[in-house]
């Protein structure tokens, strides 16, 4: 294919025409990662403001003893919403937004792997967050604390809609976390500049790869817990009710199995930011790149082995506590490795100072304190005193504000010139920093002492003779100083947008790829993709920017109105496919709106609307692939530099395949949590004596038909490879998968009244899980048959058939443990 080289300006125009998002209503169709990354971050800042206002209400109430400003009923809603908003609606979406904006630019790609999924995730975040905020404004905010302990959050003790708002709103928002995680993993592994091998990616890429994997495994337990609790609240299935074979502690295990990794999920991206900013200001590469990779992998694993440190006082045997205590103390080591890597980088460089560095210093001061109190809290005897006291409130804010808010402020000042193309005005930046730092320490340092003096958290008022008065008053004063600081930061940002001078393209003289483009960045990021021959945090963005803008590099042309970027081999970074990305579309918005109807139906108990809403959501999702895929084999396509690689649809190792496997991993984690829950209740919960109803043969029938479907899927794939028609086999497989679903649904019906005991409720959940997955397998096979008929499938374009095999296998494998557990449950006794 011969491309006439265009002038840089003409190339810019041609690419912009392909990649741009139209103005006006067209903005709602945006799928571009630059736009969506900014939207995520802006919305997260709005929620940060809301959470901050709630924090000020808390501090106003607690400033004096016996205060009658807010009563307990309202106070409980306020602190619950403060924690919930800060964790779920600010921290997580904030770094997701940063990663969405930054990753393709750092890795040398033109967008993320699934642009429309990014958009769908954004809408889920917006709508889910709105459910929570609107409920709060109407006075129906959740009020059981951000970790929603049962039985307080179950129907008996929180009869209103409040807890449902939390469970459904947060689950809705979590959709965006899962989609972002899949997308981030696939993008980092598959979409990089040619030559960027896995050990050459900028360190932020490693941090986000590990974080996203943790999200993929960490969020499903919470999603499962929320589903079970919502089923208990809505349909009285007693998973957490100790009088009917449930156990409130199951909720705590599921919640903290998510909740502890969560705080590392929040910290690691921030650490990635620090590892990116510090070398720029130290004017030397980061030291100990390899040791840092080991440290973050170690942190990722360890963080899944210490959730019980939130449960040291629930009465678990000392040996088990000791495991979790040791693991909790051990995470300090990878943290220390990173801290010293940063200090070592600063020490051996020629450090210059600027506003981002102020916040880096602030990070060191605050976070090291938080880490030290964290080690203290990991010690069981001390924990029994400090747990649920203000000492913990102090600790958690030291880690979250020190380990997340300060690095994010550093990131804000560091990358603001990238967002706006302007330089800072700075008059306000420095006083703002001091207000925040001093205000923060005044507020929270004293809380350590308040806690040690016996003040429990989550109390709306306290008597004045217990020695807590002056500490609380000073904390409140500090809180207001800090808020003034944040307000100044906001004004500062607005000033930069309004009055900042158009600045240099790479103001900090950084050496990472995101600066090798004009700022604000064009819709397509890079006019050509660079070839990378060394670690990608030691590049020369200025020289690269010039040559890339001139189209010198890979894919340095606009072709056939297609949004093209490169896919590479995961390890070596050698190009192995041209990824053709979908263009702007309203489908994500419609799908998210339909998903919103689904959740609102559940929330308001308008159950008749739920199944049609689910059908509409599925139908809309089935429309997504229509815009993609080719009806003929294209063969290798020219990518410039004299190389040619096939299109993504024609290779096995493509992003869809990676994403599907990531989705299966998340799904399997959710299922593993369910299996864990079933075993846990059967073994631990009180009230499991007496006979239980026997199990029947339905699981076995389901298993047989599901394995049949999976055999047919394999057969279909082989026929297709040989160039024969897989059509009938696919339809047959879909029918068998449908039978499986039917068997499971029959099983659910035959269970009888599952509200009587957790034994039956668990079987109900197992059947439901298997029915849903058989249904998914059926849809995917039928869809593959349709795609084959339409000519999207050929011997090389066989992704649809491989997906059929993947999901039928999964549906069959899911039935195996389900059957085993049903047999076990039938023997465990307990159903009255």
């Amino acid at each position, binding site marked *: 294919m011969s491309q006439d080289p265009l002038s840089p300006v003409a190339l810019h125009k041609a690419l912009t025409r392909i990649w741009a998002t139209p103005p006006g209503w067209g903005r709602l169709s945006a799928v571009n990662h630059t736009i969506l990354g900014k939207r995520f971050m802006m919305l997260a800042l709005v929620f940060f403001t809301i959470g901050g206002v709630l924090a000020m209400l808390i501090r106003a109430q607690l400033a004096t003893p016996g205060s009658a400003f807010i009563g307990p009923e309202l106070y409980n809603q306020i602190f619950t919403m403060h924690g919930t908003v800060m964790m779920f609606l600010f921290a997580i979406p904030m770094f997701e937004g940063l990663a969405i904006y930054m990753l393709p630019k750092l890795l040398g790609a033109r967008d993320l792997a699934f642009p429309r999924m990014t958009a769908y995730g954004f809408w889920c975040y917006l709508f889910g967050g709105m459910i929570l905020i609107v409920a709060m404004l109407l006075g129906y905010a959740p009020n059981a604390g951000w970790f929603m302990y049962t039985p307080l959050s179950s129907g008996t003790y929180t009869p209103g809609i409040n807890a449902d708002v939390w469970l459904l709103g947060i689950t809705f928002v979590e959709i965006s976390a899962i989609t972002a995680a899949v997308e981030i993993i696939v993008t980092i592994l598959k979409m990089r500049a040619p030559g960027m091998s896995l050990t050459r990616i900028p360190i932020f890429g490693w941090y986000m790869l590990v974080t996203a994997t943790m999200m993929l495994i960490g969020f499903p337990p919470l999603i499962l817990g929320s589903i079970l609790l919502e089923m208990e609240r809505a349909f009285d299935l007693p998973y957490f009710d100790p009088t009917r074979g449930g156990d409130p502690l199951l909720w705590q295990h599921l919640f903290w199995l998510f909740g502890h990794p969560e705080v590392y999920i929040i910290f690691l991206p921030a650490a990635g930011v620090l590892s990116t900013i510090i070398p720029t200001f130290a004017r030397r590469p980061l030291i100990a790149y390899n040791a840092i990779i080991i440290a973050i992998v170690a942190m990722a694993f360890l963080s899944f082995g210490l959730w019980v440190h939130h449960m040291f006082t629930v*009465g678990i045997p000392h040996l088990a506590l000791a495991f979790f205590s040791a693991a909790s103390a051990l995470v300090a080591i990878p943290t220390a*490795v990173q801290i010293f890597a940063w200090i070592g980088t600063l020490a051996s460089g020629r450090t210059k100072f600027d506003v981002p560095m102020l916040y880096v210093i602030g990070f060191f001061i605050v976070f090291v304190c938080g880490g030290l109190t964290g080690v203290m809290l990991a010690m069981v005897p001390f*924990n029994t005193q400090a747990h649920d006291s203000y000492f913990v409130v102090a600790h958690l804010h030291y880690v979250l504000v020190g380990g997340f808010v300060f690095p994010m402020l550093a990131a804000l000042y560091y990358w603001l010139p990238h967002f706006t193309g302007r330089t800072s005005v700075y008059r306000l930046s420095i006083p703002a920093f001091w207000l925040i730092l001093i205000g923060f320490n005044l507020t929270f340092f004293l809380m350590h002492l308040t806690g040690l003096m*016996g003040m429990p958290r989550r109390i709306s008022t306290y008597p004045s003779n217990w020695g807590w008065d002056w500490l609380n008053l000073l904390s409140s004063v500090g809180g207001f100083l800090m808020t003034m600081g944040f307000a100044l930061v906001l004004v500062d940002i607005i000033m930069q947008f309004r009055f900042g001078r158009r600045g240099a393209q790479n103001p900090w003289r950084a050496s990472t790829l995101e600066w090798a483009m004009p700022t604000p960045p064009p819709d397509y990021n890079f006019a050509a993709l660079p070839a990378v021959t060394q670690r990608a945090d030691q590049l020369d963005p200025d020289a690269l920017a010039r040559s890339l803008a001139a189209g010198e590099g890979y894919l340095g042309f606009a072709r056939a109105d297609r949004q093209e970027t490169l896919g590479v081999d995961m390890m070596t970074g050698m190009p192995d496919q041209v990824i053709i990305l979908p263009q702007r579309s309203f489908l994500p918005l419609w799908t998210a709106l339909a998903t919103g109807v689904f959740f609102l139906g559940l929330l308001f108990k308008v159950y008749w609307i739920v199944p049609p809403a689910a059908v509409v959501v599925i139908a809309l999702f089935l429309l997504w692939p229509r815009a993609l895929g080719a009806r003929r084999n294209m063969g290798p396509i020219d990518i410039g530099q004299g190389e040619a690689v096939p299109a993504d649809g024609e290779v096995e190792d493509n992003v869809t395949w990676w994403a599907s496997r990531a989705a299966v991993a998340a799904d399997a984690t959710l299922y593993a949590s369910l299996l864990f829950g079933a075993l846990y209740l059967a073994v631990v919960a009180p009230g499991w004596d007496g006979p239980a109803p026997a199990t029947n043969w339905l699981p076995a029938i389901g298993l047989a038909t599901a394995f049949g479907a999976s055999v047919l899927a394999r057969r279909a794939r082989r026929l297709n490879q040989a160039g024969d028609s897989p059509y009938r086999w696919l339809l047959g497989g879909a029918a068998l998968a449908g039978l499986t679903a039917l068997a499971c649904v029959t099983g659910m019906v035959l269970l009888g009244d599952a509200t009587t005991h957790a034994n039956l409720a668990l079987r109900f959940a197992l059947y439901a899980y298997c029915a849903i997955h058989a249904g998914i397998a059926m849809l995917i096979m039928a869809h593959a048959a349709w795609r084959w008929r339409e000519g999207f499938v050929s011997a090389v374009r066989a992704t649809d058939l491989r997906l059929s095999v993947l999901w039928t296998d999964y549906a069959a494998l899911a039935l195996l443990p389900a059957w085993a557990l049903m047999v076990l449950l039938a023997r465990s006794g307990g159903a009255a």
Partner: protein
Amino acid sequence: MSTLDPAGPAAADIATLWWVMFWGALVLFALVMALLVLSFLRPAMIASIRPIHWIIGGGLIMPVPILIALLMAALLLGEQLLPKPGGVQPMRVEAHASRWQWQFSYPETPGAATTEILHLPAGEPVDIVVTAADVIHAFWVPRLGGKIDAIPGHTNVIRLQADEPGVYRGICAEYCGEGHETMGFVVEAHSPADYATAIGGAQ
């Protein structure tokens, strides 16, 4: 109310642990800050430290021994605080939580009534058996020792001792809804001679 003003062996040991950790943390914090300041102001002094030495020195040699020593100490202390069977068994008192009050009963003293004040004999360990009727609460008397959760469907035991006769304050430490902050209670420790009259046992 303060954990730093202990009135029993459990609280005293934990307070000692706290002070050790506090001073240790202070030293570590000062060390990290000193290195940070040096890296800005006098980088020449530490610029010759090689990357591997930063990682091995700061990331391993410094924290590992400290953490292991601390873990061992905490483990042994934790063992010591457990309500272990064997030996002379302490007296058992029951604490039952419901929204939003505590009720204490004395099953080992026939005829003793249920009380809203927790009466303890001073100078000897007592096993407190903690249960809950509705939601989760937590039993906490900061001056005597750590807390233990009261969970519906579960029975937990904590061993505490008040060294001297006197009045101590307890509080519910697990958020339990609207009346959470009102769920305090009073602990009265009596000399062994007065104890029986205090709980009104039929002796």
